[in-house]
């Protein structure tokens, strides 16, 4: 199902909202976006993709460019310089020539040689996408969840 088809309105849902503080942080203050609930779910899934040894997971890694590694090698990056590079990589991917006024991205180290970048704004159908990049921040593929 797609987000657009869920047929809910923001105003309607606002009345139901129960959890948490919004995770928006001013772009000028940091480029390391770390929304709590979303970060936890994404991190758990990535650890699974990186560390599991079954054939289907191995095939997923191969298709998207991930490398097998230990669960501990998957963690959230808080280094502004790294996040900046991630933000630049996604801006370029999306055809945005402005690499100065960047938007924050969730940057996760996914094994020794890979990063996963998520700007929280990439949607297709009912899925949201995270991008896999190498240590040069070259995009290798994407995972839609």
């Amino acid at each position, binding site marked *: *199902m797609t987000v657009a088809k869920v047929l809910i309105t923001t105003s309607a849902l606002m009345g139901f909202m129960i959890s948490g503080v919004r995770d928006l942080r001013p772009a000028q203050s940091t480029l390391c976006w770390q929304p709590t*609930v*979303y970060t936890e779910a994404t991190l758990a899934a990535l650890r699974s993709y990186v560390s599991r040894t079954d054939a289907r997971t191995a095939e997923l890694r191969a298709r998207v460019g991930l490398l097998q590694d230990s669960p501990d090698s998957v963690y959230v990056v808080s280094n502004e310089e790294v996040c900046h590079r991630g933000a630049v990589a996604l801006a370029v991917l999306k055809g945005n020539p402005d690499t100065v006024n960047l938007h924050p991205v969730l940057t996760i180290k996914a094994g020794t040689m890979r990063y996963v970048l998520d700007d*929280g704004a990439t949607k297709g*159908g*009912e899925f949201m996408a995270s991008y896999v990049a190498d240590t040069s921040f070259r995009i290798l593929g994407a995972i839609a969840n």
Partner: protein
Amino acid sequence: MLQRRYLTYSILVLGAVACAGDKPVTGPGQETLQPPSFQTITPPSGTVTLTPTASNQGIPEQTVVSYAEQTLVTVRATGQMTMTNNHGGPAGQLDAGGSYSATEGGCTGNVWVAFAGSVGFCAGNQQPDPAHAWTVTTLVQGNGRVSWIAGPYSPENCGGPCFTFTGDGFTVTITPATVDFNVTASPTTLNYNDSVTVTVTVSPAQVSGVNVPWRIDSTTWAPAFGTQASPCVGTSWVAPDAGTRTCRRPFGRSGTLTVFATVNGVKAQGGVTITVTPPELDVTAAPPTIQGPNSVTFTATVTPSSIPYNSWSLSGWTWTPDSGTGGASPCNWNEKTCSRMVSRSGWMKAAATIGGYALADSAHVTVTPPVFDVTATPASIPGPQSVTFTASVTPSPPNGWNLSSNWTWRPDSGTGGISASCAWNEKTCTRTVSKSGWMKATTVIGAYTLTDSARVYVIPCPTGDSLVDREPIRKLLPSLWSQASPTAPPANRVERGGYVYDSLGFDITVPSVQAPGDNPCQNANLRTRTLPIVVGVHVHPFSTGDTLPWQQCGLPPLLPGQTYVMGHTWGGPSAPDWVRSWIDQAPHIVMDADSIYRFGPPDSLHAQVNPSNPSDTTYIPAGNWASKIHSYPRNAGSCTRP
């Protein structure tokens, strides 16, 4: 002559109407009881003029008026005569008191009035005699006689009359007291057996310090129905003062009370109409509505509450069912409260006679059918295995219940499919079932014949999840999967969905129509019914790790060689799938090429703002959402689900 002034009061008209159907009641003198309650009593009066002409010629007595009963009257004599002596000279004036003679020891030349005894008149013996009004108020009885006594006495022999008179004579008037006679009651409208004060008054009660003579001779009571002694009899009356008599008594029926009296010598009567609100018998049933046979308490009470509990008895109870026969036994006549087992809707009626009133009332009891439920456990089985069928009645009848016949097994196809039939005396029955089918049981509870059935579904490779293994879902999933074209190139696949609703205990399966925007990565899956949702279902026509057709899915383009693959951050469903479950507040099922996921609803949602666009909010599951998902592999051993 009696002169009566009749006042008409509407209440008395009503009283007369109330008595119209009965034999006319008459009072003393056979007078028809048409009371006014108020009368002015005016006994006869009398008057006479005596005109003497000479002192030696008295006027003989004559009866002016007669009173059979003691009567208070005022006797008055007026007028003067001018006297002339036998020498032709003036001799003064003579009034009704005449002249007192010490020699005679009394009066002469005076007006004499007497009934049983003398009333008057006689001048004083002290000279000079003062002027007199010659009037007296007194009780009299009998003939009122009037005469003029010759005189004045003179010791001389006048050789004829000593005096001659000129003038208009003496006028004697005998005037009885005029009094009002009234009969009232308070209250005149009352509840059964409330007390009424009947008041009889004579006014004025005294004239010139003398009591008006009066007495109550009798009372009659004309009840609205039947016969009754008069509530007010001779000893009932009390006299708070000379002009009043009261009687305070409880009244049980409407009617007219007439008081016969003799007032200042005249027969008088007055009546009051009493309107009594009859007692009521009230029957209640508690509770008035029961589900299936149950005990009901019936209570009979009477109003007004002032009627003592032990002063009345019921004549009996009767039970009438709304249909058919039976359903309850009537209470005993000597029970004002009783509890009975009631199994059919109907009326319980009580009757009583209180104070001559035949009373009855009824209370209705509605018996609604209990819930008869037949279950099969487990309802879904992978192949021949034991299934326990259970029949229950809710609420359970206090006196127990049984099935009315043996259970009936009906397989979906052919015959058999069960190891043995279940008997009527087995409310729980375990048999080996090898085919899908229905087990039916019937019971009769009171007026209701109740039937229910339980479905046993033989499915291959059950998950053990009661929702996923539910028959309509197991049939809907492969249908949706087939419609999603899962073996077609990814770009040609499409998500498909539907809902299963609960329609009064029956599952209604409604596949959703394919919306214009549906594609390999989305499906509107609109909810089209307002029925309660059992589960929302849709399929993702991919495996985890499959490459998604980014163009059809609306994802940003990648460079050649780069792909979007299907992940499982949210356990298999997407975040919007969780949101939909939360909105529906119902579980959802997603099936992809690998697994069947049953999930939701989540505890809560989290609003996540797009960091590059604050006006864009995405909702994701929050709380312990991960514990709200169960996944079942589609390929389990030799099984392929669904």
